[in-house]
């Protein structure tokens, strides 16, 4: 074993810079979608929904099962384009519904009773952790430790070329779709009636009630939106990492997404996008610069800690309360 466990391979970073960038953005976009779920719930309830990672993984299972039953598998499908679009849409919908239902069930079963009892914060966190364990190992019992067989949706094709690095259709789809979804969410929170209800509850729950806002319903809606976005994230995750669906897969990604939410400023919708993209990029640059992928999480967390030390409430700081959505 060589003892130079840390070294900075700048030539490698130069060489792989663009591919690291595009892959980092792709992952960042997925982190961002999942991070939104953390951030929305945090904004409204001041609660880290630790079990959101399981909301996400259930969505992944929804996507995988749908696609598998439609005949998708590890190999590139031989279907026509329209059929693929239809199937993917169906998978997207199933994934979103699966995640949303999970999120809603969590809210009703785990969190609402605590809210009614005005439980201390630690109790919420432990409940969330408990729910997370229960769902993870529930999946484990049913599906075992192995990941689901890979599902390939389509063969990514080169779209354009940046300084010799190919950007393929898959990367573009994921990044653009995720950004569109996040912008739509942002606009929804800012402009729609429900969105205003969410913001109102986040800023002052009692006054919101006095405005005729049904707080319980808004909380449920928030969980559902978080779930829907996680479900969408699930489709892209399966697209990007075809065999990444296993019982603990959500937990691993969830921690990164949560970190992304905190990095951007938890409670802040735009912060989730920013945090996600940044975390994706940093991790990818870091692993290439430092030589291997074992560094990804170390670099990501070190940067997170540094950012928090400089800006204790994340890059964009304040929550939905004070910031404008």
């Amino acid at each position, binding site marked *: *074993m*060589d*003892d130079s*466990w*840390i070294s900075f391979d700048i030539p490698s970073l130069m060489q792989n810079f663009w591919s690291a960038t595009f892959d980092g953005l792709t992952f960042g976009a997925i982190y961002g979608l999942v991070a939104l779920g953390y951030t929305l719930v*945090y904004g409204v*309830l*001041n*609660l*880290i929904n630790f079990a959101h990672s399981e909301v996400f993984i259930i969505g992944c299972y929804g996507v995988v099962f749908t696609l598998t039953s439609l005949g998708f598998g590890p190999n590139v499908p031989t279907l026509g384009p329209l059929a693929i679009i239809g199937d993917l849409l169906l998978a997207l919908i199933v994934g979103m519904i699966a995640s949303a239902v999970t999120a809603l069930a969590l809210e009703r*079963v*785990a969190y609402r*009773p*605590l*809210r*009614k*009892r*005005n*439980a*201390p*914060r*630690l*109790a*919420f*966190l*432990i*409940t969330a*952790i*408990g*729910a997370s*364990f*229960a*769902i*993870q*190992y*529930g999946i*484990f*019992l049913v599906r075992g430790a192995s990941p689901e067989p890979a599902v390939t949706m389509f063969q990514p094709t080169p779209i354009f070329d940046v300084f010799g690095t190919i950007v393929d259709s898959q990367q573009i789809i994921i990044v653009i779709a995720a950004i569109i979804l996040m912008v739509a969410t942002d606009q929804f929170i800012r402009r729609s009636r429900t969105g205003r209800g969410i913001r109102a509850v986040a800023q002052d*729950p*009692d006054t919101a009630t006095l405005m005729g806002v049904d*707080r319980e319903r808004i909380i449920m809606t928030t969980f559902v939106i978080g779930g829907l976005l996680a479900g969408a994230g699930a489709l892209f995750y399966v697209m990007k990492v075809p065999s990444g669906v296993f019982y603990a897969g959500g*937990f691993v990604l969830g*921690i990164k997404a*949560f*970190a992304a939410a*905190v990095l951007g400023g*938890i409670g802040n919708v735009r912060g989730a996008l920013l945090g996600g993209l940044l975390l994706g990029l940093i991790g990818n640059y870091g692993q290439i610069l430092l030589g291997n992928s*074992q*560094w990804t*999480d*170390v670099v990501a*967390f*070190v940067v*997170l*800690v540094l950012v*928090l*030390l400089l800006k*204790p*409430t*994340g890059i964009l700081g304040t929550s939905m309360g004070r910031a404008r959505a």
Partner: protein
Amino acid sequence: MSTTDGPTLIPDAKAEQDAITRESNRTTRGGFFAPLADRWNRLSRPQQWAFLLVVVVIAYALPVLNPPLITSEPGNDWPITCLQMAIFALVAVGLNVVVGYAGLLDLGYVAFFAVGSYTAAMFTSPDSPYLHIPYLWTLPVAMAVAMFFGVLLGVPTLRLRGDYLAIVTLGFGEIVRILATIIPAMKGQVGFQNVGHPPGTAADGHPIFSNSNGTPWYWLTITVLIVILLLAGNLERSRVGRAWVAIREDEDAAEIMGVPTFKYKVWAFAIGAGIGGLSGALSAGATGFINNQKFDVQTSILFLAAVVLGGSGNKVGAILGGAVVAYLPLRFTAIADYKYLIFGVVLVVLMIFRAKGLLPARQRLLAYGKVAYARVAARSRAGSPTAATKTEGTAK
């Protein structure tokens, strides 16, 4: 704010009202363990000591007694199960200082456990090329190294509050775990074999402290545990313990009352880390082998769950919680695959119906509090009519 800062996630008039109502009902009815606690408090100091002595004797005799029904055999060697329970209890007592007393949510506590384990291993294992010292010396050294890491983590991050601190500690835990993989000297999954043990040879020529003989290790661990408990009790009943609880209850108010909050938070981290490191060193010695596995977030969360399950802020509760968390999966190997599922469900149900854990916190924060309270009680018995608690004043 600290984790327990504020009674609720967001102020909601009705929930607050309900909670106060429930709380006051509870104090009138008395909690599940309240009669026990009352009876305990009525005992005189010598009586309490006598009772404790019995408990300690039973605790020491536990691996030898091997009580039927309770025993983990035939799936797991009972003395080793006892040892695991004792180590978890020690961990929980350490984490309780951080989470229970000071209210600092630490999701990466396993890092300190890992630091302690590696310290013990790297100073004693023949696989390590470095300086070797006798195993027992590694216990204080592991504590010191872990405390150093506690301060290292604490000084920059303890300005953060609540959830931000939680994610930073979680990140720290992950960093330590991954670095143990990356840094060649830590030998990743290859690990360190034949970690040292205390001296002594039994009649058959085998060392007394072998990794297949849980009993001596268990005795060592609970001896350490008792010492730590006494010391933690000393801290609890001093300005240090009061400062921690004040920080937990209201950090700003504590600061304004002259508590150097930052300093005491760092102390809480350091002391918690030290106990974590100590338990890590004991665990490494008892197992005889360590590698980078099992220092993950899940284990951290298991530690945290032990504290909360037992009753955050209550050191006896922490022991109970730690022992239960270690015991259940070893006892019920038949349900091994279900254990985390059951564990998760239990956590949810427990938090809904017993948010404060099995033994709710009630720390004693004054070294001579008993004397003072006894005097007050005596005086009110002597019968001043105004002495009874009056329900004067109004709620806002």
